[in-house]
Every structure is written in structure tokens, then in C-alpha cells.
């Protein structure tokens, strides 16, 4: 079809004129400096395009950009279209970004499903200043047996040269657990309150090194039991410390990036854990190879009780029950409170078969078991847990 056989209703800017019948829209157009004339684009929004080249000389640094506290730089940009400017964009225009949507499965296609499924209430407000930003958030969610309200305050500010960013955050949440509605009645109007404070700094050390350090302190009190487990009685206080350190280093001789991280966790239940992560991002021509590994180990909570095993090493249900009944004080058989270790190995390969066809393959294998516990044997009677994850992607332009 060509523009010649279109109906006579098609005048210049016909769609815009048609939209003016909608309530309120005529007012908006009237205030626009260019009005409803043919040249409807804003005067200052000229278009110029640069594309196709990523000028970052340090490939593989995208990850740290994503994880570092995001500095909201509002430096005005002279040019109108620019690839590098993406980091200071105020907003993103695209087809609906489903990847960032909490619940997106409702509509089976179409431009966008107008869905009712949304979080009960979740509003975040951010105030931006020249080199800093302050955010406040409120969230409320409810399920049939669980209600949660959380508030948070975050501040971040960066130095004149943008090489250092400080971050400070505080948060509080208040939960109510009540399963009387489902007739179980093991938790009746129980409450839990937690308070958290986080401080962090991200520092560009050299053109090839970025480090980050975060420290989080949490204080929680109230009902921590699992109301759906028998013999689950936990302390009503759980205080936590979390320390996180990252270092990303670009190795010029290899044209590769090394991403490392270490996380330490400690709480008053007696659980301590260490997580170490390593990724090597290696571009080789059209190929990018990213091998990675992560190791995790945690101690058991003080009140975790081991199951009783038979001489053959089988789970002895009756023996375990007898032991539990005799236990005084706090107790839990929750495997997440046991001593164990875990290893994740991953490999991602992206390859451009032709300039138009890119294949990427990611393979990940996860193993969790008592034997992987940092200092020898972990909790007895735990079933090892293995998981494999394979993802193949194909992008073809035609």
C-alpha cells in the first residue's frame, strides 16, 4: 500500500488532531510552544545520531556499574543523541521492559496488558541535588497470613571528580504473622520488627580498578519461628552484620576484566557465612568468554538440631522425634540453619557466527552439601543438593 490510496481523512498530523478529542489533551498541546501545527516536535529536541561504537575502553565493566550505588549525575548534555550519555538519562523509552516488571505474566501478548496485578503499595521518592540524592520509600504488602510494612531512607553523594561515592541507608520493617484464617492457628497475631543501617563507599582507584565496601547492621525482634514446622522455636531477637567488598580490575595485557567479591555474614542465631566470587571476562575477537565461580559456607545456628540417623546412616524419624521432645529451649530443623557449603561454577560464551547472528551459551552448576562446609564436616543427615542451569540464546538479524 502506498500513501496515495489512503483515505482523504489523512491530513498532515491527522493522528494528533484526532487525539485532541480526548479529555485534557487539547490543553496540553496548547501549552506546547509548537502547538498542533505540522512541526509538532519540541523546538529544542533536535535529533542527531551517533551509534554502533561503544567507546568504553574497558570491556566487561558493565557489571560493576550496575551494582555500584548509582550516582545520579545531572550534567546537562549539549548534544541531543549520544551513546555515552545513557548513564545520565533521566528515563528510558522502549517497549515495555518486562525484565524489570515484578509480575508480567498476565497478558498473553498484545501491546501491553492493562493488568490489575500490582504490588499492594510501593512508592519511592527521590530528591536529587547537584552531587547527591536522597530517597525515601514506603512499601506495603499483604498475603493471607502475612502483612508487611517497610520504610527506607537512602542517601548517596559523590566527590567533585566523581571518583568516590558514599552511600548511607536506613530501613525499618514491621511484619504481622497470623495464620488463623487458614485454620492452622500456630501463629496468632505475631509481630516482627527489623531495623537496618547500611554505609558504603565506592572508589575508583586507578583507571583500571574500582573497589566497593558496604557494611550493614540489622537488628530484629519478634516472631522468627516457622509457623508451619513442628518443633520450631527460635529466639525472638536476630541481629545481623553483613560486610561486602568488591574489586573489579581491568587487565590491559589480556584485554580482560577480573571481578571479585567477598561477603561476610554474622547473626545472633549463631550463623556465620562467607561467600567468595570470581569472574573472568575475556573478549577474544567476536567471542566473549566468562568463566566464574562462587563458594559459600555457613555455620549452623546454635539451636539447630541434627536428625538422629540409624547405624546405616538412614534418617530415623522416631529417634529424631524422641530427641526433639527432650530438647529444652530453642530448636529448629530448618536446613537453612544447618552447617553446609556450596559451590557454583559457571561459564558463559557469546559468539558472533556472522555479524548478524550471535549465539550465547551459559552453563551453571550448583552443588550444596555438608561436605563442602569450610572447616570439614557440616551438619549430618543433610541431603546434598545439585542444580544445573543451561541457557542458550540466539540473536539473529534478518
Amino acid at each position: 500500500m502506498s500513501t496515495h490510496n489512503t483515505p482523504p481523512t489523512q491530513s498532515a498530523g491527522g493522528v494528533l488532531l484526532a487525539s485532541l478529542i480526548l479529555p485534557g489533551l487539547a490543553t496540553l498541546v496548547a501549552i506546547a510552544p509548537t502547538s498542533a501545527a505540522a512541526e509538532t516536535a519540541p523546538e529544542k529536541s533536535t535529533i542527531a545520531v551517533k551509534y554502533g561504537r561503544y567507546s568504553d575502553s574497558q570491556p566487561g565493566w558493565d557489571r560493576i556499574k550496575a551494582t555500584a550505588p548509582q550516582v545520579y549525575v545531572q550534567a546537562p548534555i549539549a548534544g541531543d543523541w549520544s551513546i555515552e550519555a545513557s548513564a545520565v538519562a533521566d528515563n528510558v523509552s522502549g517497549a515495555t521492559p518486562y525484565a524489570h516488571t515484578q509480575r508480567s505474566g498476565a497478558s498473553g501478548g498484545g501491546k501491553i496488558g492493562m493488568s490489575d496485578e500490582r504490588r499492594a503499595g510501593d512508592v519511592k521518592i527521590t530528591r536529587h541535588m547537584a552531587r547527591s540524592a536522597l530517597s525515601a520509600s514506603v512499601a506495603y504488602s499483604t498475603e493471607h497470613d502475612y502483612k508487611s510494612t517497610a520504610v527506607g531512607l537512602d542517601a548517596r553523594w559523590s566527590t567533585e571528580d566523581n571518583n568516590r561515592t558514599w552511600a548511607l541507608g536506613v530501613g525499618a520493617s514491621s511484619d504481622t504473622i497470623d495464620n488463623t484464617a487458614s485454620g492452622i492457628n500456630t501463629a496468632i497475631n505475631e509481630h516482627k520488627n527489623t531495623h537496618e543501617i547500611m554505609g558504603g563507599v565506592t572508589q575508583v582507584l586507578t583507571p583500571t580498578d574500582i573497589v566497593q565496601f558496604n557494611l550493614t547492621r540489622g537488628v530484629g525482634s519478634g516472631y522468627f519461628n516457622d509457623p508451619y514446622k513442628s518443633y520450631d522455636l527460635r529466639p525472638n531477637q536476630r541481629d545481623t552484620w553483613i560486610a561486602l567488598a568488591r574489586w573489579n580490575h581491568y587487565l590491559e595485557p589480556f584485554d580482560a576484566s577480573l571481578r571479585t567479591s567477598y561477603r561476610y555474614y554474622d547473626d545472633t542465631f549463631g550463623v556465620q557465612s562467607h561467600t567468595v566470587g570470581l569472574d573472568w571476562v575475556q573478549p577474544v575477537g567476536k567471542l566473549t568468554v566468562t568463566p566464574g565461580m562462587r563458594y559459600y559456607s555457613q555455620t549452623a545456628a546454635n539451636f539447630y538440631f541434627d536428625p538422629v540417623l540409624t547405624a546405616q546412616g538412614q534418617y530415623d524419624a522416631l529417634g529424631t522425634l524422641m530427641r526433639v521432645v527432650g530438647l529444652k529451649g530453642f530448636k529448629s530443623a530448618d536446613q537453612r540453619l544447618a552447617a553446609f557449603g556450596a559451590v557454583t561454577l559457571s561459564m558463559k560464551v557469546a559468539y558472533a557466527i556472522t555479524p548478524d547472528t550471535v549465539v550465547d551459551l551459559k552453563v551453571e552448576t550448583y552443588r550444596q552439601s555438608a561436605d563442602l562446609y569450610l572447616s570439614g564436616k557440616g551438619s549430618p543427615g543433610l541431603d546434598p543438593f545439585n542444580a544445573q542451569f543451561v541457557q542458550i540464546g540466539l540473536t539473529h538479524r534478518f
Partner: protein
Amino acid sequence: MQRWRTLRFDFQAMASPCSIQLDGQDEPAMRHAAAQAIAEVQRIEHKYSRYREDSIVSRINQSAGGAAVDVDAETADLLVFADSLWHLSDGLFDITSGVLRRAWDFRAARLPEPVALQSLLTGVGWDKVERKGSTVRLLQAGMELDFGGFGKEYAADRAAAVLHGHGMRHALVNLGGDLHALGARALPGLQDTAWQIEIQHPRPDTASGKSSLAVLALQQGGLATSGDYERFFIHDGRRYCHVLNPRTGWPVTHWQSVSVLAANTTTAGALTTIAMLKEADALDWLNTQGVRYLAMRHDGQLLQH
């Protein structure tokens, strides 16, 4: 006078991440205006959802093949707009085409049975919708209206109108990538500069992490983007996206992404959808609409006006 500040409100609506940003001096007034604008978005979502049994759209659809349904003035206006779009696009923008998505299972990545598609196509056609006064009637049983094709864009404009009505002159509304800018920035040092909008790259480079096609300076008006990357599957090396031609029932293939800048978001959104549907004729047609656009063709060629 108080100092200038920027407030940003993030919220979730219409299954999308949304935000409102305001530059201003009177913080309580800014908060109040934003709350009213968010309420307006929620009102529209609620009213035109096809998932709510009590929504006006559900009432119209439930009466398909039966009696005419009386509609309120706002809905009647939206139907007039839908009618204009149908005429202006040579029948390509058709709000009865939503039923076609029943044939396309994007999760299973399966091509539809031709028979299934054919039978659904018999229920597609704006010419099978009868409007008389304030009533509307779908002539065939099984027909459905879907306002999803412009509901989010209309909500962005309405939210901007609410902000404007509350005296806001420096604001940016973003509903899942459909944007309305209400005047330039006003922070000291940023006075009269435009809002910087990143255009999502339809084929982001996973190796370099480059996910943006370009950045657009938007000061006043609407910006919307349509693409073949929002929901799609690849079968035998071909991409099948969710933008379906209402005549054939098959996905369009000519454009990876089309962004349009217009005086309001409703117009920008309708134009970007119609451009996707017009395929090779899209740019000739967009040029008749007097708007700016940035489009990436199937072969990666970037075209702009």
C-alpha cells in the same frame, strides 16, 4: 522562596515500572500533584483493564453479539479516537485485533495452526463495531475490544494534564517507556535544558553491556517506542514478535524499533504502533504526520527525521 529541588516518584502501574519526576520549589505542592497524577493513572488502569470483570471493556466484550452497551463520555471519546486511528491507518490500527493473541503462544514459541488463526480473524474488524450515540455494540459473538494499544499512552497524557492543572511546569511522566515531558528542567544549572531520555536498543550487545540506542533530549511533548523485542520468539531462525497485522494475523517483521516524538504521548504511541504495522511504507506515512522519529530497520539500518 524555597530552594529548587527534584522529586522523583517511582510506582508500578499497568504491569510496568513507572515514574514521575518534578522540578519545583514547593515540595508539599509537588507531592500533592504527583499523588493526584498517580491516582489518575490508577483510575484509567482500573477503568479500562480487560482483566477486571466489572470494567467497561469487560462489559462491552461480554455483550458481544448481543445488546448495545451504554458508555460514558470518556469511553465514547476513546472510541472516536480508535475510529480515527483505524481510518488514518487504512485499517491497520484495530482495537478488535486483540483476540489474535490467543493463537500466538509466545512462551511455547509455537507457530499457530492456520485454521485457528483463520477462525480468529473472522472476529477481527473495527467495521464490525456499531456505534450509535453513546452506545457501542460488537456485532459478532466472541469479538473483543482492547484499549491496551493506547491506554498507557493516554494515561501518561492524563497524568501530565493533572500535573499541569496543579501548576507543575517542569515534569516528566514515564509509564513503562511511554513518556510525557511537561516543560524543561528548572534546577539551578539545568534551567531550560531538556530531560534526557535513553532509547532502549532493540538488540542490546550482551558482551559490552551496551543497551541504549541513543539519548533524546525531550522538553515538551510525548515520546513512545514500539519494538519487536518486547515479546517474541525465534523459530527456524525467524523472529516472531507480538505486533500482529490485523488482516493476516501474522507478526510484522520490517522494524526492530520505532520511536516517535509528538505533541502528546497518545499520538506518539499510536504513530509508533502504526509505523510497525505499515512495515516498508512506515516512513512515508510518518512523514505525513509531521513528527520526529528514530527507527531501526530489520537489517540494523537507523533512519531518522
